[in-house]
């Protein structure tokens, strides 16, 4: 079945609502920024209006109420919307939800899912473009799933809503909402916490997540077509849990790792991945691990300025070429 990313998310929510009466929604805009998102979610919200709590612009309160509902036996899905709005909810998201299970001596689970739309969206400027996965990645107790494909968008959301017992930040990306792929809903899903080899290759490993996955694949196509270089592309899928093993195994084969990351360079998600490889894959590395990330500046509005900062397939490919030319002196 052909599904776009938004349809895949809406289908996962629909099936979860049908399968578990404890699932309900707080807020109802979800991927409302995109036409695909509105088309997918509007009928869902209409069909399940009694399972949708309308939400004022109260991110902090909403986030806390989702946690509270989870404590009283529900499995809420909270629409925080643009990931930048999560800063308004930070106290609950980072300092309440993730601690509760641990602090209760393992007695109180928090099965709440926080829907977030991350990324440089085009014209979002500094305040609507944040990528917050690295910041949340530094908070133990919060699961971070970042589906890059409609198939994962579907499977990971169903997992969060129906199976997980821990708070989950479900981080979609503004630039992925319209992407359409063939999805086999009956196929067994790759377990959460397992990375996927999206493209096999021998010459270097590109370790990607979220919107970096399609861009890394485009870079790999270009490297193959123009330079005969075969890049292996890994889709990390989740940052917590983090599949360090698949990454290290791939680098053991290729000897080189490039990490494209839409986070800012300093302390971004790529920093954790690079540090892991620098230690666990040290003996396989033929060149230093490289990152291509968003420079350490707020995102500007002007299309000319914004595009200067974007991690594009071109930048990924040219960094890969630079790495392959590296000589140990």
């Amino acid at each position, binding site marked *: 079945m052909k599904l776009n990313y938004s349809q895949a998310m809406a289908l996962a929510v629909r099936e979860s609502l049908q399968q578990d009466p404890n699932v309900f929604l707080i807020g109802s805009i979800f991927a409302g920024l995109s036409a695909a998102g509105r088309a997918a979610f509007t009928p869902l919200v209409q069909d399940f209006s009694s399972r949708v709590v309308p939400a004022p612009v*109260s991110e902090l309160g909403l986030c806390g109420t989702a946690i509270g509902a989870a404590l009283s036996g529900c499995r809420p899905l909270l629409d925080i919307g643009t990931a930048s709005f999560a800063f308004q909810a930070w106290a609950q998201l980072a300092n309440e939800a993730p601690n509760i299970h641990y602090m209760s001596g393992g007695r109180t689970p928090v099965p709440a899912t926080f829907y977030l739309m991350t990324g440089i969206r085009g014209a979002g400027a500094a305040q*609507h473009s944040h990528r917050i996965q690295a910041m949340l990645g530094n908070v133990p107790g919060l699961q971070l799933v970042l589906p890059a494909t409609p198939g994962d968008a579907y499977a990971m959301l169903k997992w969060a809503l129906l199976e997980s017992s821990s708070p989950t930040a479900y981080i979609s990306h503004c630039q992925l909402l319209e992407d359409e792929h063939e999805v086999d809903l009956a196929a067994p899903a790759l377990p959460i916490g397992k990375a996927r080899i999206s493209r096999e290759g021998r010459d270097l490993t590109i370790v990607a997540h979220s919107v970096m996955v399609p861009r890394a694949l485009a870079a790999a196509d270009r490297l193959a077509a123009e330079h005969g270089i075969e890049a292996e592309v890994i889709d990390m899928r989740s940052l917590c849990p983090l599949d360090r093993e698949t990454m290290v195994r791939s680098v053991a084969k290729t000897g080189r790792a490039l990490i494209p990351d839409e986070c800012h360079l300093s302390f971004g998600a790529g920093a954790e991945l690079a540090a892991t490889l620098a230690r666990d894959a040290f003996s396989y590395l033929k060149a230093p691990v490289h990152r291509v990330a968003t420079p350490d500046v707020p995102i500007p*509005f002007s299309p*000319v*300025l914004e595009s200067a900062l974007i991690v594009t397939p071109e930048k990924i490919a040219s960094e890969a070429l630079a790495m392959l030319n590296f000589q140990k002196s």
Partner: protein
Amino acid sequence: MEDPVKHQKRLENMLRIRRFEEQVVRLSKAGGFPGHYHVYIGQEATAVTVCEQLEPHDMIFTTWRNHGHLLARGASPGRMLAEILGRATGLCRGKSGTLHLADKEIGMPATSAMVGGALPIATGAALGLKHRRSPGIVVAFFGDAALDEGAFYEAVNLAGLWKVPILYVCENNSIPPQKRRRGQFPSSSLNAAQLIDVPRALQIPSEVVDGADVDALCGCFRKLIAEVRTSASARFVEVRCTRWPGNVPLWPELPGGEWNLEWAFGAKPEPQDLAAWAEKSDPLLNYLRGLLEAGTLDRDIAFAVDARVRNEIADAVHFAESSPWPDPAEATRGTFAAERRT
């Protein structure tokens, strides 16, 4: 009767905002700039009548719906439009775009596009003015949804506790709650009977004023701003505006095309909701009709003022469109300020 020149000036200031915003809608639809945006049509009288009462050392904070506030305070329409188009000559060098327009020179140093984001900042600016014994005051403009956010409550409480000179201007442009449809931006979803019940509970003197009645607005702001100045303490006002039919969340429309001066002389706009709005709720038309009736203004003068404003805005559009793009290297400049010199 006040001086006719003053009325003409006020009319011109309101029209400048309306004609500017029409060009913003046109430019967006023509692909002149990416992203969503918000216009101030239907609320012009509020910004204009507030700014008439302000002094150069006063400060203003606004939101994503900021164009009218900047224009009323005297920002350059050309440099504003250049910013909205992302050009090098823009007020913020292309960094801010429509959502974050700011102009430090006119006392509008920073604009947040987060709901409620500027309220604590504005309160702090008033604290700073007080600390420096400045004669200035602060005006904070914000939408009705700000009261949904905890930041609103904290900011207003601090202003009350600390006694700082600030006027909170809540521009309530919500459609009535019963007409709100699911899936639209939630707005004005407050459980209090009235918005002003909240600041009143915090002992902030609060009033409600009709945003379509220019005389009422003038009287209200003259009084409140004088009170803020003399008492050096906070006031709150809810301006009730009937939502202009083109105010569609994220992508405004111009139903009925450009605003037509003939609507003040008996002609009726096309779509019915716009006609109803033009009859009662458009502050500009209400004001014009009043001036015409009182004989303060005649048809020729009204058309001459409009022509002047249209020319000015056409020049601004030309300036913006013919401005260069920023140097891409500008993207990585300006994260930190230069160290202060000793």
